């Protein structure tokens, strides 16, 4: 249906009003909410993610598209809750303790939501125990941690170790990212994955949640 394509395009333009109107229009035409999400909103965010990865667009365009995506999701969310349609797995995400840089983490949250994941965003300066506690409470499959400061990276190790101590490693997967972080560091601390950018992080979360 062309209107689904229109949603994707309006989302890429960051046109909140148009996205919201089109979502409502499709729903009243009895298009399934799941299709509106997958073929409209998620399809649009996929294009945004791809363009961002290739440096065709930058953060402002992604932030605007995300606003439009959230507008559309606000309309869809009550319908999903009512019909109990299963969404993809849950991911708990945050910037680690001692670090208040959240641009990268927010971007990953946007891309994860854009890919259909249920994201619990704990914000910034998140204590290690809180990552674990919330992940358990929310029955999350993955914990995502971000750090911009090299000095705060050891906080990632602490989360991984707390999971191990509670024998939750393997059940709750961990992925880390941020400017100073590397695949080597992920291996070193025993994290399950390292995302070098937001799109790559989503790819990894998909892999982590489908393998087990």
């Amino acid at each position, binding site marked *: 249906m062309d209107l689904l394509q229109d949603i994707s395009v309006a989302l890429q333009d960051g046109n909140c009003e148009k996205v919201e109107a089109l979502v409502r229009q499709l729903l009243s035409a009895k298009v399934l909410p799941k299709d509106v999400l997958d073929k409209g909103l998620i399809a649009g965010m996929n294009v945004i993610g791809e363009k961002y990865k290739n440096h065709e667009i930058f953060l402002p365009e992604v932030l605007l598209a995300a606003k439009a995506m959230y507008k559309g999701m606000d309309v869809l969310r009550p319908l999903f809750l009512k019909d109990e349609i299963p969404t993809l797995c849950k991911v708990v995400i945050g910037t680690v303790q001692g670090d208040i840089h959240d641009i990268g983490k927010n971007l990953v949250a946007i891309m994860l939501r854009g890919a259909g994941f249920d994201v619990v965003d704990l914000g910034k300066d998140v204590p290690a125990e809180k990552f674990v506690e919330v992940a358990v409470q929310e029955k999350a499959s993955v914990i995502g941690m971000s750090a911009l400061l090299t*000095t705060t990276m050891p906080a990632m190790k602490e989360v991984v170790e707390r999971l191990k101590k509670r024998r939750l490693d393997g059940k709750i997967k961990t992925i880390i990212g941020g400017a100073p972080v590397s695949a080597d560091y992920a291996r070193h601390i025993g994290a399950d994955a390292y995302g070098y950018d937001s799109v790559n992080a989503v790819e990894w979360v998909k892999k982590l949640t489908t393998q087990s």
Partner: protein
Amino acid sequence: MRKLLERLAAGDLLVADGAMGTMLMERGLHIGQPPESFNLDHTDVLEGIAREYLSAGAEIIQTNTFGASRLKLSQYSLEKQVEEINKNAVLAVKKAATERAYVSGSCGPTGKFIKPYGEIEPQEMVDVFREQIGILVDAGVDIICIETMIDLQEATYAIKGARRVSSSIPVMATMTFENTPKGFYTVMGVGIEEAAKGLEIAGADVVGSNCGNGIENMVLIAKEFMQYTRLPVIIQSNAGKPELIRDKAVYPETPDFMAEKAGGLISLGVSIIGGCCGTTPAHIRALRKAVDSCRG
């Protein structure tokens, strides 16, 4: 002391100081603690760092006010102390500098985005910087340094804020670039041409780049800047990209390496050379030596 802009116009090359944050960490700043909290109860440490950079040969010393805008401080619930934090930082550096160096008031990003992609109104951004810069100027800084910007709009509003405070104070404005396959861009997508022209139009007196890159990339960035502006250019390089060794951040570029590569900046005609994250008084001493030997 001769006015900074006169010296730059006459073709002088100045050495600025190096990192603040990494120096504070070595002097007891805890992970997660805002560096500006030292301005409330450890001004002796700030004075000591300023003295070290002075004796290394820096002629421009920055204040520890990078995150001291009301918006940034509010993320640590310190916004009520915005005046004290900015004022104390200036006084500490002035005490050490005693007219031997220019005191530069550092203003970093607020950490918030402007509408439409963020939530902050442009006018609020201007007001936030006007407030901080007003305090810095009243306390006696010689220069304002708006630095580590990734959004040209925010940088522009900061320069506007500075100009509302004073039409005559020298304003330096620097942005932080990433090396992408398409060239150097800030996270917000600002290229060097756009940055150089935009900062100049906004009213900056000195433009350039700090942070984000080691010295070799900085030479490339400086070269591009100088194609697009006639203003004096400032470059403050990181000591490379930090690696974590036994839970400690280690910056790979040594003072000698940096000083050698800084030859590229000197021959390009860059006006101010200093350091950013990971640089130490030893780096500044090496840069000083390189600059002095080039001048013969």
